[in-house]
């Protein structure tokens, strides 16, 4: 076994339910995964599987109708779920864990200059004065490949790729331990997407930062992944290192997902997954994938345990018991 990097983030049994008129929606239901220093964990899943809610749960950005919210989130050796809201805001959010939300490039403030926006987190969270913060912003913008004279431009004067880079600089300017990227490249063109991916690969090596990449695009996710967690209906069904995951996924759902990706360099006919993901309002008992699973058997009506396979790969499926 190779030397493993230091553990940065450890999520255990994290739950986030939303209260609605028809009952609690189990958006994140008992999620476990790890993140190591200078590595990236990719969270893959279809829309509505709870990926974005997981990001919100880690950063404690809860909507008003949040109900059950518990579990453990260990940042280094501190359980940050134990912190009260005020100290969480002061000590953790953006300082230690930051986020590039979905469609961040379109969420930049149109009346503030790019430089001001990138410097703002440093001023708010790091107590820097304007001069220091601007310096930090310039450093970070250079790092992500935004020309320095863009500092005085407005977001609408920038191309999509440059705006996405600026959003990334905003998340990195406080030099956090963990950056959560929610679909960072889905609205971009192929070439821009590839160059942003190049950039993040470089960031991962150069900075002391780990990434959580949330995406539904499996092909692109392989560009950054060291570890992969597959989410289905609010639960993590498989956690594995990227190398083994992309060659031989374990869970039947991971299998089906991989088979649904159209390939450019191979002529395998892609397959689709029949049926719909279950409602999170009243998820089926037992395995949540059983109704769409080609390998279903009697056992699947009971809640599957999380099993260790091949040493350290985790899969939540009766087939491996």
């Amino acid at each position, binding site marked *: 076994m190779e030397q493993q990097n230091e553990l940065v983030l450890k999520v255990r049994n994290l739950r986030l339910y939303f209260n609605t008129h028809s009952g609690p929606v189990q958006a994140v239901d008992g999620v476990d995964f790890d993140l190591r220093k200078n590595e*990236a964990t990719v969270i893959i899943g*279809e*829309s509505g599987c709870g990926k974005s809610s997981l990001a919100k749960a880690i950063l404690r950005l809860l909507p008003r109708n949040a109900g059950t919210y518990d579990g453990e989130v260990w940042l280094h050796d501190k359980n940050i779920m134990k912190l009260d809201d005020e100290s969480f805001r002061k000590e953790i959010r953006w300082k230690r864990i930051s986020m590039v939300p979905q469609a961040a490039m379109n969420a930049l403030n149109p009346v503030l200059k790019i430089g001001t926006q990138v410097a703002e987190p440093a001023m708010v969270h790091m107590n820097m004065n304007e001069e220091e913060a601007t310096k930090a912003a310039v450093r970070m913008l250079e790092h992500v490949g935004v020309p320095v004279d863009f500092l005085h431009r407005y977001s609408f004067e920038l*191309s*999509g*790729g440059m705006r996405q880079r600026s959003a990334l600089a905003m998340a990195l300017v406080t030099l956090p331990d963990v950056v959560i990227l929610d679909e960072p490249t889905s609205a971009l*063109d*192929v*070439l*821009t*997407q*590839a*160059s942003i*991916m*190049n950039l993040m*690969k*470089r960031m991962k090596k150069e900075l002391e930062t780990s990434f959580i990449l949330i995406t*539904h*695009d*499996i*092909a*692109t*996710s*392989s*560009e*950054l*992944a*060291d570890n992969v967690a597959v989410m289905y209906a609010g639960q993590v069904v498989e956690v594995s290192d*990227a*190398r083994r*995951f*992309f*060659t031989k996924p374990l869970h039947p759902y991971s299998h*089906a*997902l*991989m088979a*649904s*990706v*159209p*390939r*450019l*360099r*191979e*002529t395998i*006919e*892609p*397959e*689709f*997954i029949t049926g*719909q993901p279950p409602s999170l309002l009243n998820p089926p008992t037992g395995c949540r994938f059983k109704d769409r699973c080609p390998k279903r058997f009697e056992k699947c009506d009971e809640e599957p345990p999380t099993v260790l396979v091949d040493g350290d790969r985790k899969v939540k499926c009766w087939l491996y018991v």
Partner: protein
Amino acid sequence: MSDVNAEISAVDHITNDQALLQIKDLHVWYELKRFGFGHAGYVRAVDNVRFVLEQGEAIACVGESGCGKSSLMKTILGLNIPTKGDVIFDNTSLSQTKGEDLRRYRSKIGYIQQDPFGALPPFMNVQSILEEPMIINGIKDKQERRRRIEKILEEVKLTPIEQVLPKFPHMLSGGQQQRVVIARAMIMEPKLLVADEPVSMLDASVRVEILRLLRKLQEEHHLAVLYITHDLSTVRYFSEYIFVMYAGQIVEFARMEDLLDNPKHPYTLALLEASSDPNADNALVQREIPKGEPPSLVNPPKGCRFHPRCPYMMEGICDVLEPPNIEVTPKHLVACWLYDEEKGHAI
């Protein structure tokens, strides 16, 4: 199709008077105004594009945003007026068509939008969404309308029909919404379908299903399909021909396998390099991406429009002269000086 057509060469594929859809030297320019009235130049969104599409054939148009593919599509749909050149569809010349005739022209082309939820009116149920085009186009017989709706819903596999009809768009999943959009595009029994990134907003697991459905409809109805996308990995399953657009122009045109297995233009090479298949090795390499961004179409670069980003740029040629269309192998055209017999040195 006749035997003569079976033997068409690539050049015929660019000019063929018999074809269903003919794009002839099409230019779509948008005028820029200064202070609301003074002329300040043109945005050359589509610049000298030509190709033909036969009945029953699928062609894919690949390009990044801002390359003019939407302008091309809108012109084919009859929503833009060609600045120069012409679109001939089903023996009707678009530049000669006006008023009532233009409306009839539009009704013969089905349009599949990119974002199904945005394309469906939220206050109409599936029944009225599918009925509206028929009412507008004068199908007055209620039974006939009903018959068509049932037939098309059956074909796009939205069943049971009785349960689907009263539903509103927000009650359907993304895949189902896209099926309604497809059904609506097909309800007037068009000869040509224009599909603008039909699967880019959908989940990976349903993408393939929708693509297969489109393919099936195309084969069964012997439809011509123009499939617009930026995602090269989906075209393999869909089209016979493919062309790549850059900055308003077609840079490469070939049979689908030929282009994917044997790409010629440096821009096509870059697109292929940037698209990834799931593979853990991807994380270890930096991809070679041409620097910079697509040029402004107000003042496109002189010569080849890709030359400022091209790693194989030949000084004195690419930045001065506009590249000709060179037929490298039969039915494979590329607009690049590298393949010119005198000037070029192929990569």
